[in-house]
């Protein structure tokens, strides 16, 4: 192959660049740049291209570019992908890691909302973190066309180093099988916090991913744990939920993907979701038993915020602790849905205060008004309060403030 095209262009494409690279025998580097930002950045883009080709040892080539305002990390990824496709080089051009991208994650952080970003669409990366999702998922699987998988991986690597996700947990969704393990090779060294394993059906798959990640981390001399979130998307996966949830220490959450699950069952996915009730229940129970977070499927009608909120409330009622999002506007609704409502909070406060009073008075029985309160009710109220404090809905010293009111 003498000529290759990487990247995207078109009337609706923004912040990307289509690169057409052709290796030639003589004549040096011939550049042809079409760009809407040519006046401001034309020289910078040409300089960057020449430097990159030189870095990859290419002395003779024709490089045509159709630019819609791509940032340097995108241009670099597109050119590297083109060079790799033509020469098969193992060499990588790795941009400098931005200092603000070195933050860590933790096992028990909230994962209410996680925003899917199609891995080959750089226009959506840049502002994703500004919408305050709990996590961003750079997706290499279903949202990337098969013939674009290689270039997406390079783009995602550069994004992990350059793009500021403003504190969101940095997640990637890898491909299935061998390709997925290759995804890990390229991406794990760049401060990935969590890996989503798609269409997971058994513990073995989880262990394979976990082992490979630990090998890479050891090789790189990095020691943070990379968390795993298997996605259950089939009948077999549902039946093996418990063993998947406990397959590795790094599993912190388990998600369900209902589009594929209903397809596997050969039924329609409905808004009411009767067809997936068992699977969702099973996933919640297995997750809770394993001490990890159960995460619900995405809600695909991005225009229907009321439907989304109802969906979140019913998921929360089933025991789910998060949900995927495919549009930034879904994030706030999901957070609101999973947060304790004012009524819930008031009730929880009363119960916790009554429990404390009973303890102080040495009473064996806790009562609120004329109603007896069982220990599990107290435990649930305490969970609600802890959640509210962590979400900043209640100050940590709320109980002192309550008492000073009385």
């Amino acid at each position, binding site marked *: 192959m003498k000529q290759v095209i990487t990247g995207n262009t078109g009337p609706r494409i923004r912040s990307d660049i289509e690169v057409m690279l052709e290796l030639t025998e003589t004549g040096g580097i011939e550049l042809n740049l079409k760009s809407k*930002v040519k*006046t401001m950045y034309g020289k910078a883009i040409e300089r960057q291209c020449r430097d990159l080709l030189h870095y990859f040892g290419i002395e003779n080539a024709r490089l045509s570019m159709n630019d819609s305002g*791509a940032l340097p990390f995108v241009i670099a990824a597109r050119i590297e992908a083109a060079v790799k496709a033509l020469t098969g080089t193992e060499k990588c051009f790795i941009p400098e890691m931005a200092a603000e991208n070195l933050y860590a994650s933790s096992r028990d952080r909230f994962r209410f909302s996680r925003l899917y970003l199609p891995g080959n669409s750089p226009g959506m990366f840049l*502002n994703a973190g*500004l919408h305050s999702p709990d996590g961003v998922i750079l997706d290499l699987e279903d949202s990337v066309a098969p013939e674009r998988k290689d270039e997406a991986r390079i783009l995602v690597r550069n994004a992990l180093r350059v793009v500021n996700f403003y504190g969101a947990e940095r997640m990637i969704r890898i491909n299935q099988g061998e390709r997925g393990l290759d995804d890990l090779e390229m991406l794990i060294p760049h401060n990935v916090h969590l890996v989503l394993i798609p269409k997971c059906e058994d513990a073995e798959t989880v262990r394979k991913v976990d082992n490979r990640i630990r090998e890479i981390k050891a090789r790189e001399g990095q020691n943070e744990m990379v968390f795993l979130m298997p996605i259950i998307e089939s009948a077999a996966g549902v039946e093996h939920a418990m063993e998947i949830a406990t397959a590795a220490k790094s599993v912190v959450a388990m998600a369900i993907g209902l589009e594929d699950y209903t397809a596997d069952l050969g039924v329609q996915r409905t808004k009411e979701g009767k067809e997936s009730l068992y699977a969702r229940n099973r996933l919640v129970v297995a997750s809770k038993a394993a001490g990890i977070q159960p995460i619900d499927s995405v809600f695909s009608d991005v225009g229907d915020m009321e439907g989304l909120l109802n969906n979140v409330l019913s998921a929360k009622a089933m025991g789910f602790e998060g949900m995927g999002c495919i549009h930034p*506007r879904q994030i706030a609704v999901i957070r609101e849905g999973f947060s304790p409502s004012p009524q819930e909070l008031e009730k929880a406060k009363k119960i916790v205060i009554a429990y404390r009073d009973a303890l102080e008075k040495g009473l064996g029985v806790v009562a609120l008004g004329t109603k007896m309160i069982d220990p599990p009710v107290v435990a649930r109220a305490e969970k609600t309060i802890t959640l509210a404090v962590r979400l900043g809905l209640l100050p940590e010293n709320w109980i002192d403030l309550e008492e000073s009111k009385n």
Partner: protein
Amino acid sequence: MKLVENAAGRLVPDEINGKEAIPFMGVGKYRPSGRKYGPSIPTCIDYPEDNNKVVGSLKEALVRCGLKDGMTVSTHHHLRDGDLVSNQIFAIASELGVKDLVWLPSASFPCNDPVIQYLEDGTVNRIEGSMNGPLGMFVSEGRMKGMAVLRSHGGRVQAIQDGDVKIDIAVLAAPAADSFGNARGTGGPSPTGVIGYAKPDYLYAEKVIVVTDNLVNLPCFPMEIEGNYVDYVVVTDKIGIPEKIVSGTTQITKSPDRLLIAELTTSFLEKSGLLRDGATMQAGAGGTSLAIAVYVHQLLKKKGWKLSFGFGGSTKYMVDMLEEGHMGYILDAQAFDLDSVASIEKNLNHIAYPVFNAYNYHSKGNLTTMMDIMILGATEIDTGFNGNVVTHSDGLLLHGIGGWQNCLHARNVIVPVPLFRDRIPVIVDRVTTLCGPGELIDVIITERGIAINPRRQDLIDAVRGKGLPLVTIEELKDIAEKICGKPEKADFDDRVVAAIKWVDGTVIDAVRKVKR
């Protein structure tokens, strides 16, 4: 002609199209003298006794008005992108062999691109008004014979009133008119709601032609154009394409990033205390502004507050506020959608209010200084808070000023903008073209932080410690450059292709021909 440095440090021509021009002297520094301009005194002797001024065609009307070389012809832009009248004027002039006309529209739209051929064949010497798209490109490339003059809506009124421009013939499309020339913006097949932009034209033009596709019985009431100022009435099949005059419904942005900016803006209005019961507010019809209107409406509902009035460009979202009791009145210079047009017809508190009365700086006060909250856009803002709305960073002239400069005189000017568009920073070290001085721009709201003009310590104090992402304008510029890289400046030729007027008629900046 020579270039002189004005008070804003910009090099501007001291002469425009053969007439002396005054360089910008600073905000509120230039004081005009003399008397307002007036057209010749007419007499009833020259008009038909039955007052039927209908003539056979626009061509006949133009000929009877004495159309000849070098004249200035004005139009209004209420037909927006559905205007079927303006281009005809120049087609007729070209056919008659008339040369070197000056076109003075209150704004131009993509539908006016055919005028380029009349600029090329010498029928039209220049445009004094807004230039968008291909027309802007035509000017930027130095292909227009005369120098373009860009004025704000209020600046256009000022220039006509003061006699800076003298209109020989005003051709005013009207959705309804009677045979005497009384005209209004409602009714007929091409309603625009209001036609207030025509006010300085009919008052000050030497000759006035009303063009309508809806001749009604006398009196055409309530009239916005008064028949005793009108020379001829032309009845035509169609003055406009309705779906291009107003939108069915103006659409709120779907961009999550723009919605984020709108939310942040609303939060700023709340936390700063600027939004309160009885406040006055104006926002445009851009997608972000509409979203702000919706969020503000929600907040007003929650608080049980009512804005005392809003100034339009009206949209469905303002009409909703009016109808639900969260806005006392809409004062309206132009209707952007069908809901607004309908509202003007039925709601007594939705009032036609021309920019003639609202925006003119050479007036005994105007409406803009009464607005508490003013939401505006910009193509560039620099670290001195100066704003540009007419060119892009590549130097091409692509937008008109609209009412932007006039609105800068509001009490609190808030500019919600993305920090960069694709790779192009909006916050820069120096605006490509200066349209508004930084001392009048108070708050810049971007998705990556809010910068308050240091001159507004009161606003800084009001919002400090309230959880808003406050940054300095320099920080915003640095963030933009860190993400996008430092942009190079556009390369210009020496030739001035357009002059940018300030609200008082002085020259605030000049646009040069781009080098290709």
